[in-house]
């Protein structure tokens, strides 16, 4: 039981980071139909902006995080505006956009590595007191990250359910041309989506780096596997599905790591992803889109 509870604690913190990342990722897919495989590179670049503000500009890590969030938002906006949108205008198949995104990912990740080199980095930040409750061990830092996640998920819920922009996003996601014909300025909705989801991406990158403690330029490269697993579990394009998927994947990977070889903890994400793609590609609750 103690193994279960302590790994559950790790699972919750993994799930918190993953939820922030996956909600951003799935929103991009929902509104623009782009599987943005360059997401991980934007995450880690944002984390490094936070690092420079924290380490070289001597800002408190939580303040520096704002820089990371802004970086994610701006980089994602520019990526969509100057790369994905122009390619999509050419009516290319979705696979071409995926290949472009992989190219962007290489440029983003290894461009960063060319600048910062291959060494290890960490924030100047205290983990805080270690708290022990209900059999779980969590640092104050990790509790704050979980708190941030809860607040952010609440904000996303409010955005989607109660604001005009959120409704426009859902309409654009369901049927972009119909939304446009109904007087929704879809171009503006798409731009806003990329700014918001990009902010989530930057936030996710920073809390990911905080939680890992030590990171390198290529740290987030394989994070996309967890992201994809969480997204497909909840149904691609669904923000609530992403939250549920992230919770499941985050907890499942850490709990399985508690019982089996931790080197294989991503295997469960892999199995989930392939299983979903095979049997329910539109999520546990979604149904197939039709022509």
């Amino acid at each position, binding site marked *: 039981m103690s193994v279960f509870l302590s790994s559950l604690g790790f699972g919750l913190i993994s799930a918190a980071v993953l939820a922030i990342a996956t909600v951003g990722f799935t929103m991009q897919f929902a509104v623009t139909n782009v*599987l943005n*495989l360059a997401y991980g590179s934007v995450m880690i670049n944002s984390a490094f902006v936070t690092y420079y503000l924290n380490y070289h500009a001597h800002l408190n890590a939580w303040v520096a995080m704002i820089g990371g969030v802004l970086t994610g938002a701006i980089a994602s906006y520019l990526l969509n505006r100057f*790369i994905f949108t*122009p*390619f999509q205008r050419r009516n*290319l*198949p*979705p*696979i*071409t*956009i*995926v*290949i*472009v995104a*992989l*190219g*962007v*990912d*290489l*440029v*983003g*990740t*290894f*461009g960063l*590595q*060319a600048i910062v*080199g*291959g060494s290890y980095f960490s924030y100047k930040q205290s983990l805080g007191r270690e708290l022990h409750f209900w059999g779980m061990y969590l640092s104050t830092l990790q509790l704050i990250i979980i708190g941030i996640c809860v607040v952010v998920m609440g904000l996303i819920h409010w955005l989607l359910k109660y604001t005009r922009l959120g409704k426009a996003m859902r309409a654009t996601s369901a049927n972009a041309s119909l939304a446009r014909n109904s007087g929704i300025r879809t171009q503006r909705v798409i731009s806003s989506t990329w700014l918001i989801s990009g902010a989530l991406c930057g936030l996710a990158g920073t809390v990911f780096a905080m939680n890992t403690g030590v990171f390198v*330029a290529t740290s987030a490269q*394989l994070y996309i*596997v967890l992201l*994809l*697993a969480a997204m497909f579990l909840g149904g*691609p394009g669904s923000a609530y599905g992403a939250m549920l998927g992230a919770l499941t994947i985050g907890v499942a990977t850490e709990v399985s790591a508690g019982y089996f*070889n931790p*080197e*294989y903890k*991503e*295997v469960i994400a*892999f199995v989930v*992803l*392939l299983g979903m*793609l*095979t049997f329910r*590609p539109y999520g546990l609750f979604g*149904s*197939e889109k*039709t*022509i």
Partner: protein
Amino acid sequence: MPSAFAFYLATIIVYGAVDSMACLALNVQFGFAGLSNFGFIIFQAGGAYVAAVLSMGNWQKSNQGFQQYVLGWHLAWPLPWIGAAIFGGLLALPFVFLVGKRLRGDFAAVGLLVSAVLLNQLVNNFVPLFNGAAGISIVPAPFTHYFNPQGLGYQFAYGGVAVVLTVLVYFLLRRVTESPYGRSLRAMRDNDIVADALGKNVRVQRTSMLILGGMIAGLSGAILVGFINLWAPGAWGYAETIVLFAAIIVGGAGNHKGAILGALLVPLGFEEVTRFIPPLSNPALVPALEWVAIGLLIIGFLWFRPDGILPERRRILSGAGKSAAAMSAPVSAESDSLINLGNLDQMDFRQLLRLEGDASDHGIILSTDRLTRAFHGVTVVSEVSIEIQRGRLTGLIGPNGAGKSTTLAMLAGTLAPTSGKVLYEGRDITSMPSNERAKSGMIRTFQLASEFKKLTVLENLVSAIPRQSGDSFVGALRGRRFWGRDDAENIERASEMLEGFGLTQYADSYAGGLSGGQRRLVEIMRALLAQPTILLLDEPMAGVHPNLAHKIGDQLTRLVASGMTIVMVEHELAIMDAFCDPVIVLAEGRVLAQGTMAELRAKKEVVEAYLVG
């Protein structure tokens, strides 16, 4: 030193051959069949591993106890290489479900990519099978019986064998792609749903290409591992597949020579050029910049030169020769009103379309029993029971959202009903896949443009002809001598059809470049050449100039008189008035009425449904 240079040259030859072979295989999957195999490296790595362990002795018995692996059969060349190719093909089987026709191409690609990532991680950590991250070393060099492995002769002999095998692979793949089967592969690449509706078994075609590419990838891995005598998982990361994709995009997807050129420029070129950069203070810089360059190459080429340095060759099928190839098509919609249908009126449809049966038989050919379809809990088609008579042009009419296209899709098998039955010639075909329905004579067209864009007009037409002798993997392998005569006849028939519709001048133009009306005609011609017993048309006149629409309608009437059965979805009443008898009216997913147009006009509820809709 000349001998150091000679060693270097021999190494380059082997690497170039291995990369070329891999790119040729990936190009057949990606450039020809439209299969984005982001997990390609798995097949190469798998083949290399199998070649290594088949050639090595048992690790427990030999003095190689420092590393663990399986098999260890100590087989003589070429058995390990053959084993590698077979294993590469077998590796395709677990991925078959990912490339089935139900899954979006980019989703399948992501599944393969993630597989590559995680298999690599597993291998890195699993010592008993793969010796973990250290990998396997001292893999025996093949054919050392004939040459001294330390000598220059051996190096060049190895390069020679690698090059010869690459050339053989090139000719094998050409044989496959430059056949009617290759045409079907490219049709599937351009539009898999339409290819399926024309009777191509998309799942089998994709599986075959996954296996064929896997076998070649496995062989290329075997050649590499025998040369470097080392197998470590670090060298087979998922990103290596992206390098191969970059090579194909640069060289030219859908062009075998382009794949080879790309292989020599990208993987080989990058490896070799960076070898000569002097060491820098930051050792990670050069490899990092290499990756940046690969990324920029992909984005840059896809934007500025999406067809690559050597673009896909346009296949000239008409006897017109190369001079006609430059013919470009007008794209203005106004020109559609000027399209004349050629000598269609003189054509004997029964002979050209191999129509059989008695044209005066008007029995029931197709019927539905309480056919229902719901999306997200909304019922779009509700308990529709209709009967279609043989040899008649039945109209399916109704306001927007009435469920006409959904009904048609369920008839053709493109869409599965939520409940209810479809009966064809008295047989329950509800669960029959769409490609099999097509083979049994039910051919549908689509509301949206559905031409195979990068096939010429003539290729579009020929691709639809059923039972072509070269339209199977085995048929393609048997070569032109086996299918050439049959194909020439098919091209002849398609040309005749093209002449009838007055589009001969566009025979060798890419179908994607035609005007809207011309593309409609191509689609109709293609559907006819699929030799339908029953033709299901989904708004064939949509976006077509009224003049042309009437010309098409006249021909449909003639087809029906020749014994074909046609069901046509349409919402233009004028068209229905002129050509369809009987007409079935759908509204809000239900059958509202049926009869001749004159009868329907007298019915109040029909008029109201239209006014409301």
